[in-house]
């Protein structure tokens, strides 16, 4: 097991380096001088621009810049500084928390709603409920976050507030604790809910068809017991896989949701980083997301072993 984890982590190194270098190179190629642009519409003294560029190694070739960056992380745990002189780690800590909260709320909503709907559909397989649930998942998949975000913001945020007089779902911002994350969390989870519903349904239907379930039923076990003990447990494996891997996706895909609901998360920050050409911020965020992706996949694979005794890792 330990050796397996180590091997997987070693395999992740080239992925991490490749992804960061790719992103680094693109930010490097972004047109425009980030320092000159800091002054907005007044012409920044070219002298000062040159001096600041030098401080941030911006005049060096790509690979050298990348080396400065990556060696800082490896040897000093230093993700660099923004042009305002703030350490990237300090800047991202708070933003990461917001995105993580959002992704976790989305994940919980996704798991609860997705599994319940999927279960329901599977048990009513072939009937109207099943068809209706499947149709609505299709609809859910089809509505881009861009649309669902605004529509829910208008209906549940604004109109509901006008009707009831209280702010049940905050329209934007993170000032109201977990309440602030409910609506954006649902919007973010939307597509995943649909996928998870379908996955749960398929998985359960297949499990229920298998021989041991038939045996269990034949033995005279109650339907509840058959489904609960035998069916669900086995149907769970692909669901856990999906949920685990989805955490990374939710975090990386939150930029639109964060924008609509104005949550100061890393998606928003990355967008600003691109705009300000803040290489350390952009690459730092991507590095974090790549790490999340790698770790999530690893954890998922390990979960396999826990859930299915037949799987063993060397």
């Amino acid at each position: 097991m330990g050796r397996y984890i180590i091997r997987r982590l070693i395999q992740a190194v080239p992925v991490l380096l490749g992804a960061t270098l790719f992103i680094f190179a693109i930010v490097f190629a972004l047109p425009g001088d980030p320092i000159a642009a800091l002054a907005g519409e007044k012409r920044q003294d070219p002298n000062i621009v040159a001096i600041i560029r030098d401080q941030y190694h911006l005049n060096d070739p790509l690979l050298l810049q990348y080396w400065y960056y990556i060696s800082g992380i490896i040897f000093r745990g230093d993700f660099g500084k923004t042009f305002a002189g703030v350490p990237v780690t300090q800047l991202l800590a708070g933003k990461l928390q917001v995105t993580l909260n959002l992704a976790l709320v989305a994940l919980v909503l996704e798991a609860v709603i997705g599994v319940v709907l999927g279960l329901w559909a599977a048990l009513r397989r072939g009937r109207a409920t099943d068809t209706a649930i499947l149709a609505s998942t299709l609809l859910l998949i089809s509505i881009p976050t861009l649309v669902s975000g605004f529509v829910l913001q208008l209906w549940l945020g604004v109109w509901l507030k006008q009707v009831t007089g209280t702010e049940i779902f905050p329209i934007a911002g993170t000032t109201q604790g977990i309440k602030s994350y409910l609506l954006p969390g649902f919007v973010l989870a939307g597509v995943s809910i649909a996928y998870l519903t379908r996955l749960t349904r398929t998985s359960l239907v297949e499990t229920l068809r298998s021989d041991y379930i038939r045996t269990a039923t034949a033995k005279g076990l109650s339907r509840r017991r058959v489904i609960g003990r035998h069916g669900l447990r086995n149907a769970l494996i692909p669901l856990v896989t999906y949920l685990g891997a989805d955490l990374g996706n939710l975090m990386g895909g939150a930029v639109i949701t964060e924008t609509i609901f104005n949550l100061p998360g890393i998606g928003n920050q990355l967008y600003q980083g691109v705009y300000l050409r803040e290489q350390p911020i952009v690459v730092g965020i991507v590095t974090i997301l790549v790490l999340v992706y790698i770790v999530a996949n690893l954890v998922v694979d390990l979960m396999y072993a826990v859930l299915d005794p037949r799987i063993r890792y060397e």
Partner: protein
Amino acid sequence: MSDTPQAGPAGPDTQTLTPETAPVAPPSRGRRRKKEGKPASLWTDAWHDLRRRPMFIFSLVLIAILLIMSFWPSLFTSINPLDARTCDLSTARQGPSAGHLFGRDNLGCDVYARTIYGAGNSILIGVSTTIITAVVGGLLGLIAGTRGGLTDTVSSRVTEVFFAIPQILGALLITATFRDKGLGIWIVVIALSVLAWPMTFRIMRAAVITARSQDFVIAARALGASQSRIMFGHLLPNAIAPVIVVSTINLGGFIAAEAALSFLGVGVQSPDISWGLMIADARSRFLEAPLPLVFPAVFLSITVLAFIMMGDAVRDALDPKLR
């Protein structure tokens, strides 16, 4: 992928199509409706199946309408939104009225006409990206799967790098970097393709590897068929079904992704019209005047729905097991 239906690295479409479960459908394995003992091909089977699905017919009709709208928008509206004289700033944000069914936007332009004219770019981008990813990813997957060895190892590692990069964020970066290069809307196609091809690659590769060890391929090889003949004559036809399935489903996702990028200000640029751009423009006054945002949003959703419904139907037909 969470912001768009585009199945991301771990989206369930790929999830269920990982090497272990990737559907490989040999042409001669007639699965239903055998006529007089003669096995029907996968494709004939699928076509029979599709024709009977109301969902498929419905999506096909929708897509046909959208295509007509893209090519001949003037059939649907007499107002040319590209002509500034049709806008009147003093009527900005007015609600629906006769002649202006969806009302006016922030600049006093007709929302309906702009929505109609927005279809073209969305569909062009969606279709182009799908074709490019299918061809590039499919071809590379075919080569990697057939040749194996170092080619396979290297290309698989490379795809992992792309899988690890969040799609919208990656596309945001690429478009932001290259958008001043005069590529117009094609930069969106390129950005989406760069990040999406690994998915087709993986699926094709997995399907090819499964097909490679099948008897008829081994037989062909034993008979001395050339590498390229085996690749294109035997492996490709046997491995292409899952690629087609995923591509059709992704098409809707690409359209949504284009809207997301345009919304973020790095996709389609004015004066080109795009639904994402319209949504972005209407956003500042969304609470005052929601309609200029709602109408393009509805059209966007319907378009994505049409393509996803079609993809869903195609998947069911080509690979019923996945349903």
